């Protein structure tokens, strides 16, 4: 994919093709997905989700600077702010579970079935 306006993009970024960014962030994203699906500790699942979100941030920044369009970077700020809100609620829920069960293993949560 060719950059749209050569002037505004620093040379360093141009030396790396956009596809590489796409592959890197897809790889990070997939690592995050695997983490969510295989780990049983709620905190580690949570960290994997953050990894997924940051892969998205990287991808948005790469697209944004190659297109010389600021909208992508603005979106990244929104994602970071919302992720912070999500972290606070998520940790509160995990603490609440820990207080009641003395564990944060998601495998132990089986009260609700069929």
């Amino acid at each position: 994919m060719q950059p749209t306006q050569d002037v505004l993009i620093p040379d360093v970024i141009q030396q790396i093709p956009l596809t590489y960014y796409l592959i890197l962030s897809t790889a990070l994203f997939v690592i995050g997905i695997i983490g969510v699906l295989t780990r049983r500790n709620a905190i580690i699942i949570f960290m994997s989700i953050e990894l997924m979100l940051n892969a998205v941030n990287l991808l948005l920044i790469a697209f944004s600077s190659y297109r010389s369009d600021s909208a992508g970077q603005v979106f990244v700020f929104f994602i970071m702010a919302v992720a912070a809100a999500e972290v606070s609620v998520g940790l509160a829920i995990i603490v609440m579970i820990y207080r009641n069960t003395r564990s944060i293993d998601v495998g132990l949560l089986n009260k609700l079935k069929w």
Partner: protein
Amino acid sequence: MLPIVLLSVSGIGLLFLGFQKSRTLLLPAALLFLLVALAANFYDWNKTYLYFNDMLRTDNLSMVFTAIVLGSAFLVIALSTRFIEDEEAQPAEYYGIIMFSLVGAIMMISFENLIMLFVGVETLSIAMYILTGSDKRNLRSNEAALKYFLMGAFTTGIMLFGMALLYGSTGSFTLEGIAASTVNPQQGLSLLLYVGLLMLLIGLLFKVSAAPFHFWTPDVYDGAPTIFTAFMSTVVKTAGFAALFKLLSISFGGVYTFWWTILAIITAITLVVGNVTAVYQNSFKRMMSYSSISHAGYLLIGLAALGAQTKQAIVFYSLAYSVATISAFGVLLLVAQQRSTQTLSSTGLANEGFDDFNGLARQNPLLGFAMAVSMLSLAGIPLTAGFWGKFYIFSTAVERGQIWLLVVAVLMSAVGIYYYFRVIIAMYFRDGATEPIRVSPVYRYILLAATILTLVLGIAPGLLQGLF
């Protein structure tokens, strides 16, 4: 735009009201704020405006959806009288969070930019995570909150990746900008765009609990406090479908041929999974959560057969569904509190089975009637609003010639009649506890209003036509 500002301010105001020792003011204040927001919603009627740097658009359709959402919230909050007496409950926080979640719902309804869609979805979801876990000492509520949170955050990641890919291939986050680069269906969609659309759809379909992304729904609806289950199954679903409709009709209407097959298959799976699994449930609350999955399926028919009729069909169906669901959960709240065939065990298992409804209609004719009407409406029996909802939805499928989807839907609504009638049979033909349930005046008025609305819309469905 006015309701967003009003609800944000009144949410903070309600939090401050929580400082007072007496809780009597909270419920009327929350209801009053909602009524004001509902009235302010219609201020821009018949006009189209763009707000916040062209990120929000208010038109008649978005105002009608907003009115449905605010109306459902009004009914749900009016039914929440128990919080005022319960020492453990924190009504000021609950009402505040509900107000904030409504702001998110309105953003989802009237977004014009994917940034706004994301912020709206998250505002609504994060508020729902908190409300799901609000029964702090109940393990079922804890588990539901954690499951909802982890799965919700996971699909948010997928949805965001989809948005990033869409941005990469179209260079824009606005609905028109995306639509401009998909106008040429002959040359096909680029891979980035196609994958991006699918991932974005997965994120939104998760929120409206369409199969195969429905696994959280039964657990979360079952574990959450009943009053918030009623809120979730109406407000979140209506807002989610408004967002899906807007996205698909404005941005991707031109490339309908590329996505309708996938959406139609998801629709068929949702209908079958929701209806068939609901048959095997013994808990009424869990049956209602599977029933909500199946209703997501019916609403999806309208999207898979996107056409001129879809708008009206979705609006009518979500109104009919919301009213009937709230009335059913209202009766369940009373029954679960006051009937005790099984005592509240340490696992927090509540009295929400079908057996708890035995003989209800004999002792409490009003409760029985309200429940029967809402069940008939959900099952789609004529003379109720649900019948016309299904009628409009099915006619969109006929218009597109998707007969196989229609056959699946009709068969599945026949299955639906079985489990909805189980409740009616339990109420009218079984013998149960002899003690009548005390119904407070507020409950009586709300249930009566919901029942009358269902019947009026069922007899005169034209009332809503021509509104937008």
